[in-house]
């Protein structure tokens, strides 16, 4: 164990390298990689490592990067890649394939605004585009969380009750290019936390066709099984959290991260690094006697509806901070969350920080005023922070 200054890109790559080497006595590690701002440093670090058993293939596109990961994973290797923004859009077809093959591939996504026009800064629209792809999705708030979640993602994805790919999301530049003191576990600890991968449908010499044709009934059954696996994620995650604490000595956060929510009447819901800004807002509001609290959605798929329902049970007003926009609807988080808020509560959507707009506590203070002044919900508001 050592503490080093790491960017979130290097934190993700460090976790992937540790996880890859932890599978050395089984199927090893395989990765297909392709550069895109702002995740490139992640795959660059991956390319410097000599795996005891494993390879990193430098391919010609994101579509092939995931294709190569699919091949590695089908052959029983632990697999990882990273992408962002238009790279994820280009990879999209194989992102769905990875989930439909039920392969426990882990991907780090440095969330970046989709173009054109080209914008390299943070926006969650890229990964949320893939919310229906059958991947587990985490959104992280700091670099330690990126490292820890990458390890957790492998463990969760590879659990025989789950067997689904997992995406670890982090905010472009705010985390990807920002260094932070990060606790790096030892190889021995990771070896204990991550059992070797034993993929039940690994390709061998038996003549079977993996991913061939399905008639409607088979597809119905396959989707139901996939959905049931998603349904088991919360329970398995709770088990893994405990084991993680026992081995690494720190508790990874749950699917929903509350801040001063015990007696809160007003709640600000966010994802990613906006959660840190919300904490500043909550503290300032509390100083003024306003009973505010923060909720950060850390796991977006499967959606932690029950946890949100519980956390929001006594809340009267909810502001959802969406760093994304589903054009023609509003914020994605808001649209998914509103039905879990208590009846009679006011749930207002604020679309804020699109294209990397810097969300500051002052902006949130204005939103708090706005939220308190509302008589009823109004259509999603796009807040320009510039």
């Amino acid at each position: 164990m050592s503490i080093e200054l790491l960017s979130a890109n290097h934190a993700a790559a460090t976790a992937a390298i540790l996880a890859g080497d932890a599978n050395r006595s089984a199927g090893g590690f395989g990765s297909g990689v392709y550069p895109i701002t702002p995740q490139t440093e992640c795959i660059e670090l991956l390319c410097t490592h000599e795996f005891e058993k494993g390879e990193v293939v430098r391919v010609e596109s994101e579509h092939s990067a995931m294709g190569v990961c699919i091949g590695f994973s089908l052959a029983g290797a632990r697999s990882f890649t990273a992408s962002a923004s238009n790279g994820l859009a280009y990879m999209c077809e194989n992102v769905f394939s990875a989930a439909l093959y039920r392969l426990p591939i882990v991907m780090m996504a440095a969330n970046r605004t989709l173009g054109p026009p080209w914008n390299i800064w943070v926006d969650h629209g890229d990964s949320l585009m893939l919310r229906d792809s059958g991947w587990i999705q985490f959104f992280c708030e700091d670099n330690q969380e990126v490292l820890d979640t990458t390890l957790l993602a492998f463990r969760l994805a590879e659990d025989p009750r789950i067997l689904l790919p997992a995406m670890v999301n982090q905010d472009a530049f705010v985390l990807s290019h920002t260094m932070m003191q990060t606790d790096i576990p030892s190889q021995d600890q990771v070896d204990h936390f991550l059992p070797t991968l034993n993929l039940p449908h690994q390709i061998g010499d038996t003549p079977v066709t993996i991913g061939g044709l399905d008639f409607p009934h088979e597809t119905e059954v396959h989707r139901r099984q996939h959905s049931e696996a998603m349904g088991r994620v919360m329970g398995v995650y709770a088990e893994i959290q405990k084991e993680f604490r026992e081995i690494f000595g720190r508790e990874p956060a749950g699917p929903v991260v509350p801040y001063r929510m015990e007696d809160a009447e007003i709640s600000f819901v966010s994802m990613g690094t906006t959660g840190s800004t919300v904490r500043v807002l909550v503290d300032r509001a509390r100083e003024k006697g306003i009973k505010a609290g923060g909720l950060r959605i850390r796991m977006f798929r499967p959606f932690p509806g029950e946890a949100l329902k519980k956390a929001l049970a006594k809340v009267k007003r909810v502001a959802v901070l969406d760093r994304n926009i589903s054009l023609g609807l509003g914020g994605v988080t808001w649209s998914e969350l509103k039905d879990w808020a208590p009846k009679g509560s006011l749930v207002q959507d604020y679309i804020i920080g699109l294209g990397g707009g810097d969300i500051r506590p002052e902006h949130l203070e204005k939103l708090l005023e706005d939220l308190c002044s509302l008589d009823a919900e109004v259509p999603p508001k796009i807040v320009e922070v510039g």
Partner: protein
Amino acid sequence: MTQEPLMGGMAQTSQDRCDPLLRPGNTNCGGCGMSIGLNMLSRAIGKRKVQIVIPACCGIVTAGPFPWSAYGAPVVASTFASAAAVATGLSRAATFHNRDTRVLCWAGDGGTYDIGMATLSAAAERNEDILYFCYDNEIYGNTGGQRSSATPVGARTTTTPKGKRENKKDILAIMAAHRIPYAATISLAHPEDCLRKMEIALDLKGFRFLHILAPCPTGWKSEPAEGVELVRASVRSGLFPVVEVMDGRHWKINIQPDFSFEDLKFYFEHQGRFRKGIFDVEGISSDIRRYWKELEAVVSSKASQ
């Protein structure tokens, strides 16, 4: 010196796989060139272990619905453009797992010439240890017969109802330009040459590319029983060159055509796709002459020796 096909030695022997690569119950049409190709491959593979990646194409439909498989080998059905990428993962893993498995791709012309081109080119550039087959029926057969960049000039398809205006892409030259260890074309009317090439390719390391002209009675509007004769006519007339290229530099002509105009006419007249529309046999004949002049210059050049 026209080398006629010899059927000797093609009977079932103890060398053959007891579980054929293409099993009964597959859904291929009668007279499908791909079926002949797979049967030849089955024989060439013999007792070797293989894993096959098949992208979207008739070749993956023929496997039949889950959980059955009409293939006597493990198969991964990949997305359309991903065959060479998925095969890269399988092949690299087989290497560091010390498994004696050959990884094959079996793709149509759409998955090779068009949508899979970048993936294929990149895998060839990396010289991945993959044997890539393109069974080329010169059409998007699975979707009912649309033009691809492998469709020859003049052929009518559902998206070129008046005949295709552009020439077929020269896939062998493209692959040879990657300087891969082995690239060759295969005539299904010349089984000995076909088997020899498949066996060479199976046992070489690095990226190998085999191009098979695969008659498609449904798309070509031809008689199912005439498929092999059509291939023979295209080889004799020089329309389909049967060649091999070692390391992308050493070219060799395997079957010398006699440039028979009768065979060329037979080839076009026995396929409904060439009837009507913009079609010029004389023009094609002179194109063939020019192609062979260039090819012979490459073959006899010092660089090719």
